[in-house]
């Protein structure tokens, strides 16, 4: 979802800079704003009782975050943490809903956008239901690669660290590393300068 920045400013949006590891919002908080990333990367995550991190998604420039809970009476189900220095436009919930009210065609865009996210969750749910780490990781890589135009093998460089891949799939980093090495031996991936080509 990306709304024209000028439109956002004209209805009262402000830009904010976040330092790496600063939170845009935290789990359990009531949503007050629509957020749209101008530069930088933000991760959406949870921590379980043992403090183990689970990454729901990593978002970058031109993507919004936290908008889905503006439509339902719920607190945020996750944290949003800046991964790099980020500039983010933020618009108050009331102004955002008012803007939608006046611009009905934005509804359709939001529906598409929410549906995209839902599609991602469908795929990730299916992968993560498997106890097999290779299936969990391959599901994640397939999904990431689906946005890449070249479908030939090894044409896509996975943009995540091994730790991030582990946290996306509920695995320990050691398991992720071992499984990726195994995938290299089976020619599913190639590794060049520690980067994973899929």
């Amino acid at each position, binding site marked *: 979802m990306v709304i024209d920045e000028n439109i956002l400013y004209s209805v009262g949006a402000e830009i904010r800079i976040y330092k790496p590891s600063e939170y845009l919002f935290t789990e359990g908080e009531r949503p007050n704003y629509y957020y749209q990333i101008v530069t930088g990367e933000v991760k959406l995550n*949870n921590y*379980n*009782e043992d403090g183990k991190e*689970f990454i*729901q998604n990593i978002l970058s420039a031109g993507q919004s975050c936290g*908008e*889905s*809970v*503006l*439509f*339902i*009476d*719920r607190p945020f*189900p*996750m944290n949003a943490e800046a991964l790099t220095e980020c500039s983010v436009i933020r618009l108050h919930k009331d102004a955002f809903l008012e803007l*939608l*009210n006046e611009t*009905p065609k934005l*509804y*359709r865009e*939001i*529906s*598409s956008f*929410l*549906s*995209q*996210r*839902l*599609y991602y*969750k*469908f*795929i*990730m*749910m*299916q992968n*993560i*239901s*498997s*106890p097999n780490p290779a*299936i969990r990781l391959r599901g994640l890589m397939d999904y990431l690669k689906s946005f890449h135009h070249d479908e030939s093998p090894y044409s896509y460089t996975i943009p995540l660290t091994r730790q991030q891949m582990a946290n996306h*799939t*509920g695995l320990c980093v050691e398991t992720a590393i071992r499984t990726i090495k195994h995938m290299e031996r089976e020619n599913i991936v190639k590794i060049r300068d520690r980067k994973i080509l899929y």
Partner: protein
Amino acid sequence: MKTISCMNIDENKLYSSGGEIKTYKKGEMIYREGQHALYYFQIIEGKVKLNNYDDDGKEFIQNIFVGKQSFGDSLLFVDKFYPTNAVCIAPSEIIKVPKEQFLNLMKEDPDLSLEMNACLSQRLYFKAIMLQNMASLNPISRLTGFLDYLKSYHDDSCGNCFHVELTRQQIANLLGLRVETVIRALKKMEKQGNITLENRKIIY
């Protein structure tokens, strides 16, 4: 905090947008994974599951829907194939509306669009919570997270009076666990006083 049941669009509106009723038998498939989304589906009566099978033929249930709920609608807004099958698990009466007419209905009725966004948001919320539960390798965490979510559909928050209307096999397939593991975990939760079991029914 109550979870909304959606979409439940006035049936007359659906009929005037080209909607028609179709009856399905138990076990009948409404659509298949990999097909294009051509219709909006809303259940009048019955029960539908969205599922996938892995390479070994093991079933994973993504969600179960009942009367006054729609399913598969998110695929009308994106250019992707269905990521799941939709299968009736009880005899069902379903209204189906052709995609284009459904999208026109949305366009002409901003209130419905807003409702649609709320509904999609709610589904996303469910998936975000389920994903986090599923990432856990501990079956009791998976189960507790899931039961909490189901209970949020329940009107009043009485202590321990929520009856879970799913079989143990369905729960296993929803959580990616084996049925034996679910049975064992439920017994353990009963001993810890987190659930009660009455005539094999789970009360949470």
